[in-house]
């Protein structure tokens, strides 16, 4: 009969119209500036530098591995030198990342043998200066380990466990094999196990599925 399909379609739209008032499942829109989605734990944006305790106590030793590995070359590091002797000290004097160039690939965090550079979750950056506005210096990049824990708890616990392990061995952090963090970061175990020291021989488990976004 002529009009059957039309009536069915009208019923579908009417059902959706009414359901959107009574069933919150139906309205998937989030009113962004007021409401926010909770980000999945593994979401990442730009890199930042981790410090323990005070900002002076940063983990970075200015080894320049990240600077070399960075595909778009947005990292610029200068090593600090002793004022008297002129010999290099194990800390950066200048550490700049141009966020406008960074492509958020996480390679810097993968290659860092000292767990000094990690990925942030700030996605609401904007600036009025086109050329220098997103150039972050050391001061802007430094963030505490607690902040890191808040953002990526699983990963941060793992990193802390690994660092305390290497301190127990009393070996210098530079001696740590660079391969270990790579394996661990690409395939983290599903639950945080701060007590059990993870090792490279752990078989790779599937990555943690992102939390549902509601």
């Amino acid at each position, binding site marked *: 009969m002529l009009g059957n399909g039309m009536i069915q379609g009208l019923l579908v*739209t009417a059902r959706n*119209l009414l*359901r*959107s008032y009574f069933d919150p499942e139906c309205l998937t*829109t989030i009113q962004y500036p007021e409401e926010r989605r909770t980000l999945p734990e593994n979401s990442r944006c730009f890199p930042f530098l981790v410090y323990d305790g005070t900002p002076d106590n940063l983990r970075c030793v200015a080894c320049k591995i990240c600077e070399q590995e960075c595909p778009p070359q947005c990292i610029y590091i200068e090593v600090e030198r002793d004022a008297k002797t002129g010999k290099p000290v194990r800390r950066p004097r200048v550490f700049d990342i141009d966020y406008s160039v960074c492509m958020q690939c996480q390679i810097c965090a993968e290659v860092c043998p000292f767990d000094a550079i990690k990925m942030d979750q700030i996605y609401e950056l904007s600036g009025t200066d086109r050329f220098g506005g997103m150039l972050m210096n050391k001061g802007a990049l430094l963030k505490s380990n607690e902040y890191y824990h808040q953002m990526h708890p699983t990963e941060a616990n793992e990193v802390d466990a690994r660092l305390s392990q290497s301190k127990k061995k009393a070996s210098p952090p530079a001696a740590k094999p660079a391969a270990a963090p790579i394996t661990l970061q690409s395939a983290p175990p599903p639950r945080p196990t701060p007590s059990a020291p993870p090792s490279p021989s752990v078989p790779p488990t599937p990555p943690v599925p992102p939390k549902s976004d509601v």
Partner: protein
Amino acid sequence: MYNFFDQLILTLGAWVVGLVVACGNGVSKFCCGQPLSEAAAHNVAAGTEIVLICVTIYGVFALCFGLATWLERKMLARIQNRYGPNRVGPFGLFQFVADGVKMLTKEDIVPARADKLVHFLAPAVVLAPALLMFAFLPFGRNMAPTNLDTAVIAFFAVGAGSEMALFMAGWGSRNKYSILGAMRAVAQMISYEIPLVLAAVPVVMVVGSLSTSQIVAAQGADGFLDMSRWFVWTPWGFAGFILFLVAATAESNRCPFDLPEGESELVAGFHVEYSGFKFALFFMAEYIGMMAMAGLGVTLFLGGWHGPKLLPSWMWFMGKGFLIVCWLIWLRGTLPRLRVDQLMAFAWKAMLPFALFNIFTTAVWFHLPKATLLQSAVAWLVTAALVAAAYWVVSRFVCRRAGALRVYHYAS
């Protein structure tokens, strides 16, 4: 109490007229030392009345236009499980003010090779018929702006003026999309005007008058049972109402008949080259025309301003019109756009025969005896059977061919 609210607008109008005449008397005394003569006072009162009617209609329906755009966006959004506008004012109610300000402050672009005069005139010419159509609708008890004997004919005649305006817009823009859209608009609106008028003919036949006031008066008083006298409850009235709704949708270029401005193929049809407030005028004309059509539908089939004495008569009229506007929005949220050949086939092969047969059904109804309740029931059933049979025939034989699959010669 009821009468006070029912006649509230008229009372206010009379008060303003009295005020103006009093002011005129005062001015006259001040200038000439004597009050206005009786004839002059009468002229002042009549002039004020006309201005007041115009201002009220334009004001009310311009506001209704704004609210209708808001309602449309809100309803479409909810149909698509979104929120819709909700930033400006409570529930986004003042969105149309923000839109209006945006439109007003936009640059007015005229194509270099456009026909400047025609391009300039078209938006005004398209709005005029839409507003004029309200002159023939009785909005409430004693609230008909004009009391024309040929109001229904005048309504359609004035409404047809918008076709010329659309073609002016398309032609004046000197743009291939505009001209295609305008051609489509003219073809579509002329085609659908025939079923539109034929759908109104049964009402005119039964009432025996073309006056909208008399058509409303024929559809009963204000009791609950009197609602049964609305023409939509008779089989021919129901069929006519459906036909009228479909044709009115096409006449006001609304989805699913919005081919003249089909975005997917014609950018925006006849108003491609319009920006800023000229575009807003086209938009306004579409909505105001839609509301005028809804008003005529209410007048012809839904008993006009009649209704149980719970609400003032003008509220009944506006409420019923609001329901029809909601229906049009619902339809827009549901149906996809037709193809041009389907559109034409539907008008000429389905709606025209059905409308003609509906006139015959009305004649049968008119001549069947309806003195007793039993006779009325028999008449109702007979005409209902006739309408149902006609509908079945149309959907079985005519529409199947109209909706037949198109054979592609090169693309398949």
